[in-house]
């Protein structure tokens, strides 16, 4: 048993390390820094100017949109990068080699996404810095332990959602399409730019499938001074939605892996 656990931990760690190395052998560090520092500021700027043009020039309106978009910037790493993990393996012709190993699938599945947790947390903190420094959002009442907890739990939950999408990508010819759709879906459904209550009633339950919806609400509450206990329900909702996404994602991954073994279509591209 202990041997099984230590092997799984080793697979998890080597997958995490390999994912980080692969990112930097593939992506120029300067470009990675550009992604980290510049993607979010333009997204926040765009929606802040839209809300200003729409007549919402009060500090509260701008803070609502700036914080929402800062939090949603996690999608670039947690959704887009994680979702493309299986697609990239397929594209590079390494999927078969990875899946013929006897390594623990769950450890490998989760390990590959771990670097994006740190990447996502850094992205959100940088975006929140812009919200304060460029767009004048007031953080003086912020309950920092609560905000840090929100960012950490939300990023983990979003990475789990990314893994769910990535497992679907195992079946598809390319995961890029699904990654692009879910990268931006939060802008509309997750209360990033307006409250979920403004969506048509039929769609509103769908919004609460995404951890980001709870994340944006919880982050705004933390910035307004709510403590961890006060936003405990939202944190728990994020844990549940992320956990469910991980479990369902892994089941789908195993299902498609078995299917592709039976049909001999593992790297059909």
């Amino acid at each position, binding site marked *: 048993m202990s041997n099984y656990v230590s092997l799984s931990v080793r697979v998890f760690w080597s997958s995490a390390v390999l994912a980080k190395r692969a990112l930097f052998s593939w992506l*120029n560090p300067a470009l990675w820094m550009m992604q980290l520092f510049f993607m979010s500021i333009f*997204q926040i700027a765009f*929606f802040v100017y*839209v809300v200003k*043009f*729409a007549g919402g020039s009060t500090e509260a309106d701008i803070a609502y949109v700036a914080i929402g978009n800062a939090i949603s910037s996690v999608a670039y790493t947690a959704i887009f990068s994680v979702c493309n993990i299986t697609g990239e393996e397929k594209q590079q012709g390494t999927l078969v080699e990875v899946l013929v190993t006897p390594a623990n699938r769950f450890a490998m599945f989760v390990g590959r996404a771990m670097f994006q947790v740190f990447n996502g947390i850094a992205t959100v903190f940088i975006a929140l810095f812009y919200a304060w420094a460029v767009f004048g959002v007031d953080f003086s009442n912020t309950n920092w332990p609560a905000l840090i907890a929100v960012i950490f739990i939300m990023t983990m939950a979003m990475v789990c959602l990314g893994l769910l999408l990535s497992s679907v990508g195992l079946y598809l010819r390319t995961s890029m*399409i699904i990654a692009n759709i879910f990268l931006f879906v939060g*802008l509309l459904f997750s209360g990033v730019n307006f409250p979920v209550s403004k969506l048509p009633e039929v769609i509103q339950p769908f919004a609460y499938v995404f951890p980001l919806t709870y994340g944006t609400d919880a982050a705004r509450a933390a910035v307004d001074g709510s403590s961890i206990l006060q936003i405990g329900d939202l944190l728990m909702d994020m844990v549940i939605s992320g956990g469910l996404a991980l479990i369902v994602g892994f089941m789908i991954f195993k299902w498609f892996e078995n299917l592709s073994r039976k049909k001999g279509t593992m790297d059909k591209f």
Partner: protein
Amino acid sequence: MPRIRAVTSSFRHQFLQFVAEPQWLIPNVILPFMITMVALIMFSGQQGNFVLYAVLGGGMMSMWGNTLYSSGWSIGSDRFNGTLEQILVTPSKLVWIIAGRSVWNALVGILNGVLIFVIAVSVYDADLTIRDPMLFFIAFFVTLLSLSMLGMLFCSAFVLTRQASVLTNGLEYPIYVGTGTMFPIAILPWWTNPLSLSLGPTWGIDAIRYAALDNYDGFSTGYWGDVGIMLALSFFYLAVAFVLFGVVEKKVRVDGSFVRY
């Protein structure tokens, strides 16, 4: 004549690739679609031309998204498929081959723009009465031309990098902000205005608004002034793209770095 043949052949090739995998339309159109829907909800309850403003902006964004992704992938897909060397060793210059692709991509851009209009009308029951349809279509096509030429300019730079997809993702929002697709650039900080005005699509969206909106108070140049400046900028982009393609083509031949992936 051989140049025209190269352009038409690469146009046909790009069309066939699109028909083989039309799913690639989705990444180009998804962000503009989401943003338009968000803007329509944010603008709801406002008096005036806000709906049309949002839809025109969305159409413009989808055309830009298509241009950007297509120019980014124009070289990237050849590099990935291992067909880039064959293209380079043909007697036709790379720029003519890219030009043919850009023309097809511009046509797909129209499809994207129309898609946004159709969704706005069918889902949001938006009133999209255009003040002067003829002027609107002139501005629309000239803007498309401008976007296409800007795409060629970017494409020349994308020849040098295997990471064009990262750059294309990073260039979407800056252009949406800089060109004022969803709001007038007057509300941006003053120091950003020179940059905005150096972009053809900024003048394009202003001309489109002049043609579409009643009592629109845009740039002092007026509709025809906007179109003229946009055309001048577009041909400037094209000239620079030609020079850059020449420089880049020579560089990658000397370095032997063309298909480095």
